[in-house]
């Protein structure tokens, strides 16, 4: 089973941005990503949660180098879309587990991956996955930097993958 995992990497250059309590009306996401696009800011791992009360949280990742530009953009857009606030987490990291293309063992890898992280005391804040494609599957977990190294070490040991 371990042979299907190609690589496990840790990326410390991501920042997690969360728009809190975005009203569920058309146009909110368009304003946010339109404003970021105007400044040439790339985003990754866009997630919108379902909440009650007609509001939801929308989050995404940016590169650490763009933080100073992104903060004023997000503050301005947060006001204009009537969000409840916008938060930034700079002390996070992305752990990416890459599988061989066409691997039939993805469910087993996922189960082992998350039980390994749990066993290492690593809380996963966001999960994103690409489970098909010619490049193979990839699962990305955003975790706190306080536990990221422990999570990386535990996964590499569990899947017997060298750095």
């Amino acid at each position, binding site marked *: 089973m371990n042979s299907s995992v190609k690589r496990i990497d840790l990326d410390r250059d991501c920042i*997690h941005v*969360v728009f*809190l*309590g975005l009203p*569920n*009306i*058309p146009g909110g996401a368009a304003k946010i990503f339109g404003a970021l696009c105007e400044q040439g800011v790339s985003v990754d791992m866009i997630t919108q949660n379902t*909440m*009650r*009360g*007609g*509001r939801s*949280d929308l989050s995404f990742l940016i590169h650490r180098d763009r*933080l*100073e530009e992104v*903060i004023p953009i997000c*503050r301005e857009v947060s*006001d204009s879309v009537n969000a*409840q*606030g*916008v*938060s*930034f*987490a*700079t*002390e996070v990291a992305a752990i990416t587990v890459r599988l061989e293309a066409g691997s039939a063992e993805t469910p087993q890898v996922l189960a082992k991956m998350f039980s390994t992280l749990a066993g290492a005391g690593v809380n996963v804040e966001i999960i994103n996955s690409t489970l098909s494609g010619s490049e193979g599957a990839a699962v990305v977990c955003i975790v*706190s*930097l*306080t536990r990221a190294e422990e999570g990386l070490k535990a996964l590499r040991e569990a899947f017997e993958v060298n750095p």
Partner: protein
Amino acid sequence: MNPERTQPLFSLKVPATTANLGSGFDTLGMALTLYNIFSVSRLLPEGEFACDVSGEGMDELQDAKSNMVISSYLRACREWSLPPRGFHLEGCNAVPLNRGLGSSSTAVVAGVVLAGLIAGKEIPEAELLRVTTLIEGHPDNVVPCFLGGMTVSCWDGTKLRYVKLPALPDDLCVVAAVPDFQVHTEDARKILPESVPFKDAVFNVSHASLLCAAWAMGRWDLLRVGMDDRLHQSHRARLFPGGEEILTRIRQHPDCLATAISGSGPTMIAIVKGPAGQLSSEMCRIFTAGGVASHFFVLNSSQSGTVVERGQV
């Protein structure tokens, strides 16, 4: 989008607050541009309540019997001899719970404001703030939470006096670094000394006075000194990892005008002129070094305070 969703009867947008600001223990507080939203979706018979909470505290605050918006509403109804009509409450919370950003004050203010709204009774501002302070026990969160802006409050246990200071200029912002750590109110109270040396009392009177005068006159260069404190911060900063280091190290940053513990912690605030990203990241790095995860907000002073929207009753 939920096309089935109906317009609430009342919707309240209630700001977070940072209080106990440096030398202004139990006195100075500021409303921030981070909000909880409380809505009344329908009225219920007297004494019947239901609530639905999402966001911060959604696991802890669902029980209507212990929900602070509802208990504050009932207390205000008793104070003003109003019939305690029941209601269905929806809370969308963005203010971190038990982190020193006034989440409980948003609930107290919402409950007291709802008492007047639901009874259709106009409550004078001073009386509304007296009752919120009576419930909260101190005025420095509830007063700015309702009025907005930076406020100076004086509460003798019976009478409340307050002044709203000029707005923080647009080129200044407030960074609130929020660790994933809770300081228990009991611990925060117990760690404070029963009495303080006379010279420390004088130190705080002079620095709090300087802080208020500097704020009123726009002398932002004096905030750093004006926020110096000898009553509470040095004690409470020891209750959570990184507190002491942020107080001493971040204030040396060239863009930082002042640092303080927000409320009784563990959130730390910095008033910043210029780009806030590097300084905010440094605050969170200090929490990480202490083994605690964190995130931050970059906020303005909320000048509007609590805003009420009325639907079709």
